[in-house]
């Protein structure tokens, strides 16, 4: 048995530099255009004007309007080019075409949730088409492989950035009607900055099944996901559920924001040493339709690192 290999500093530097060189070296064209558009009407801060902060702010507000106008023109002129995201964005691209439902009932972006394709969770502009194909997580652990049809989008939920660094907390996979959230919870309540949150119970699903904020219609019942056995529950939020006073959501575990109008199904499977939660969430009135499509996606799940009979302890 050998000990840990030491990486010589020069070799390490070389590998880091190779890695850094792999990123983009050119800004999207639209960025230059949208940045320069408001410049002619944007006030400069001369020393004599510093005291006139309010005036400057007003001029900046005008500048922002000019940006908005410029972007509208740019979008109209360059069909299909996303100003934000652009050609350098990784993963499936999306083209927003708001569904009537989303357009009629826009919802505020909930604090701490920023994935873009999860219409039923109150985020995004509705159905955003993604590219059909088989995907495998690159960062999220455990590694999950799955196949989505056209019209589905895949995003990441990224946890805190500053201080403790950045952690990938989960993957929302959605089609605008509903979302499948795959996460390996690290806490059972959303931690505030600097707050570690409450530890995940040894039997997460049993703990969820006793959550008085949920009204279960079935479960726990056995389920198999990616060849690994687990259990699942199904239901909705209780009428008396305590919603977050700020954003109106209830979160049974971190990164699973729920609204009273949602129907949900939560499965937990033990993958390696982690409890992986696979939640299917949609508005109650479309849940059964969404379930059919979601089951096909979940049915394609694989955990490549943990296949076989010994995978689940």
């Amino acid at each position, binding site marked *: 048995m050998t000990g*840990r290999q*030491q*990486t010589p500093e020069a070799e*390490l530097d070389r*590998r*880091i*530099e*190779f*890695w850094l*060189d*792999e*990123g*983009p070296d*050119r800004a*999207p064209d639209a*960025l*230059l255009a949208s*940045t*320069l558009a*408001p*410049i002619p009407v*944007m*006030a*400069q*801060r*001369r*020393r004599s004007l510093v005291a006139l902060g309010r005036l*400057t702010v007003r001029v900046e507000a005008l500048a922002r309007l000019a940006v908005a106008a410029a972007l509208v023109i740019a979008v109209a002129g360059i069909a299909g080019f996303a100003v*934000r*995201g*652009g050609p*350098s*964005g*990784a*993963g*499936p691209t999306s083209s927003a075409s708001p569904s009537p439902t989303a357009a009629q009932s826009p919802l505020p972006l909930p604090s*701490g949730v*920023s*994935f873009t394709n999860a219409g039923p969770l109150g985020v995004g502009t509705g159905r955003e088409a993604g*590219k059909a*194909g*088989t*995907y495998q*997580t*690159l*960062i999220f652990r455990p590694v999950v492989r799955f196949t989505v049809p056209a019209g589905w989008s*895949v995003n*990441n939920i*990224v*946890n*805190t*950035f*500053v201080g*403790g*660094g*950045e*952690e*990938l907390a989960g993957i929302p996979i959605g089609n605008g009607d509903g979302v499948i959230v795959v996460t390996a919870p690290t806490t059972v309540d959303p931690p505030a*900055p600097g707050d570690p949150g409450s530890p995940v119970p040894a039997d997460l699903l049993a703990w969820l099944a006793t959550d008085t904020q949920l009204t279960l219609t079935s479960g726990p019942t056995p389920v198999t996901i990616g060849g690994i056995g687990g259990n699942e529950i199904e239901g909705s939020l209780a009428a008396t559920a305590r919603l977050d006073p700020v954003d109106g959501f209830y979160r049974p575990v971190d990164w699973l924001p729920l609204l009273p109008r949602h129907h949900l199904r939560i499965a937990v499977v033990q993958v390696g040493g982690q409890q992986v939660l696979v939640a299917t969430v949609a508005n109650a009135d479309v849940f059964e339709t969404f379930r059919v499509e979601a089951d096909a996606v979940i049915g394609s799940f694989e955990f490549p*690192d943990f296949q076989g009979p010994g995978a689940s302890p």
Partner: protein
Amino acid sequence: MATQRELVERAGGGDAMAFDALARTAIDRMYAIAHRVLRDPHLAEDAVQQALWSAWRDLPNLREPDRFDAWLRRLLVRCCYEEARRQRRSPTVTLLSFDAPPTPDTTSGVADRDALDRAFRRLGPEHRIVVVLHHYEGIPLVEIAETLGIPVGTARSRLHYALKRLRDALEADASGGRVEERTA
């Protein structure tokens, strides 16, 4: 053809065309830095845009036009910090599609990229920026310290800390860490 100094002076006097020329020259480099620090194209775009707008607004108060590049870099770093703070939780797509055309592999390898990416994302922005400026931009630590407004010793210790984290990640990967699959 106007020199950079002349452009800076004209832009500082309110010449938008001169600023246009300065921005066109700088924007690719700024985006490259911001993207590497923030690891997200949207955040990088926001940081670059804010930095250039700040530059335009404050150019009249730039006392040393010859220091424009370093000054602009300082604005960019500040905006990267602000983006990092503002977007505490943000989406980044880091999924690998099997349908995508294969990326030519480099000597760093897929496993390296994965390990480095994961380790880098665990670093705070103050550590990331030092790594990017030093190892991507090739800026000496003294100049980085000046850009960040911190002592040289602090810049050195931040780089040391960040490199140790990256080295640990690579070594953990080499000593039994799983190798990421690239194709089905």
